[in-house]
């Protein structure tokens, strides 16, 4: 079901499935999915269907500008802090008393927001799953240490240029990805511009360490992101499990049958 609420003045949508009764929200963790570029919450169709049928409360957020979430005229609403508030307030709509525990799952740029949300949830966080999704701190470190990653991520620099990047998204990206893009995909460029504004703080401050279990799923045939090492998570989380699959960047949507059992096993172990 697509839900819609006005959050801080802007229409915000998310997919919600599975049990929503207040009592049931506390029996199993809520699985909260955060998509990347150029996607919407629909990218998680393979996960929302399966896990809601298995009895999990499931939320899949539509980031600002896509999937019915109203775009903002100001870039401020694309800053990671604003995205974090959107997710916290979405959760508040579903669980007003904040009783549920949450497993946060992020893909691509959704991983940046997943790390932020995981840190903000504190003891409500049951676990964090990243699917081909680095933390901002990880990317910044790679920018210094890995020329290959710099090259692979060079599109982020293009995305900072208004006009040209919108043209690229409209005409070039669908051809490169061999699929049509969702309506509003150009709006998602502003997420990259917002994320860049968070770089100074990410460089200057120590990241909050995640104490809950973290699962990193990585399709090694990802043309945009290098496979991570355990060392990269040293200051980010206490316990990280990395599983590398012989798949591509969008393995969660293209091969859910490979990804879902790993998610299910991780969530099962959280009990």
């Amino acid at each position: 079901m697509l839900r819609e609420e006005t959050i801080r003045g802007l229409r915000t949508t998310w997919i919600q499935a599975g049990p929503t009764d207040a009592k049931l929200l506390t029996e199993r963790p809520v699985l909260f999915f955060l998509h990347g570029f150029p996607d919407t919450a629909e990218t998680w169709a393979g996960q929302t269907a399966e896990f809601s049928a298995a009895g999990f409360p499931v939320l899949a957020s539509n980031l600002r500008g896509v999937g019915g979430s109203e775009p903002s005229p100001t870039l401020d609403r694309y800053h990671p802090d604003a995205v974090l508030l959107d997710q916290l307030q979405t959760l508040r709509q579903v669980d007003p008393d904040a009783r549920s525990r949450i497993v946060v799952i992020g893909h691509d740029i959704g991983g940046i927001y997943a790390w932020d949300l995981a840190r903000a949830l504190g003891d409500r966080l049951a676990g964090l799953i990243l699917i081909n999704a680095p933390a901002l701190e990880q990317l910044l470190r790679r920018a210094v240490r890995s020329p290959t990653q710099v090259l692979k991520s060079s599109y982020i620099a293009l995305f900072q240029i208004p006009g040209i990047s919108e043209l690229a998204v409209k005409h070039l990206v669908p051809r490169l990805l061999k699929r049509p893009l969702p309506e509003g995909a150009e709006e998602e460029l502003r997420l990259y511009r917002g994320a860049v504004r968070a770089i100074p703080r990410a460089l200057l401050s120590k990241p909050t360490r995640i104490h809950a279990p973290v699962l990193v799923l990585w399709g090694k045939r990802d043309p945009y992101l290098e496979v991570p090492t355990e060392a990269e998570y040293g200051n980010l989380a206490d316990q990280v499990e990395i599983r590398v699959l012989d798949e591509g960047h969008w393995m969660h949507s293209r091969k859910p049958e490979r990804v879902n059992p790993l998610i299910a096993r991780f969530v099962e172990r959280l009990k």
Partner: protein
Amino acid sequence: MITLDTFYRKLSQVKSPSAQVPTSSEQAGFRRAQRLAYQCAEEIGRELRPGWSEKRTARLMDEYLRDHGVKSFFHRSFAWFGDRTRFQNFKHYWTFMPSSRELQETDVIILDTAPIVDQYAGDIGYTFSLQPHSGLKDAQDLLAEFRQVLPEWFSSDATPGEIWKKVDDRIRERGYDNCHALYPFAVLGHRLHRIPWARLPGVTVPFSLHSYWALLKRGLFPELLSREHTGEKIGIWAIEPHLGGAGFGAKFEEILVVEPGRAYWLDEEVPHARARGTT
């Protein structure tokens, strides 16, 4: 011999353009700003979890306010946790700024923010804790007393400085420390203004250029409710009694309207009044 106190007293008597009864539309403007500020503090306060830093909290408060159309601030948001709520060991101006201190389960929390909304400044202070706190309830009882008596004191002939002393005496009689005496100029409160330049973002560190200018061009001392103030009471004040207990502090801050012979809180829909059922 003219002492500094005498000098301040003289300066506080300078007639300020702020010393006038606000019109009903001005009151409505200040009320809107105050309500948004409290809404922000309550909503962000609801999301607070152990592990949040003061910096993150203050940042998200500012973000929340900007998302509600705030383009400028009288001062940016503050968040203080634990013993920082009583300004323990605060020696320098910059120590007041939100720090990397992380929230603990048993901490008292103070959120303080001052957005400018459609040229009207609000300035609020909100104290709470995630878990029941043994000392906080008693401190909030005393703050509730102040909320009741302050309009009476402002309606009387007492000077602002005398009111400052009454508050200070009662705080100490009850075994607390006076933490608002640690604020710049040791103010119990300050005037609030319409700030016409608010459409400009200003530089806010943490008080905006607008607020410094607004205070300075009105003579500064008539605008600050210090122990030396012997000037006019009429007008709009942000009143902020702040007590220090063992390892924590507690305050409220809200707008008091003072007219000749009468004073009243601008709005009864404030969380600390609502919580006590006194709205």
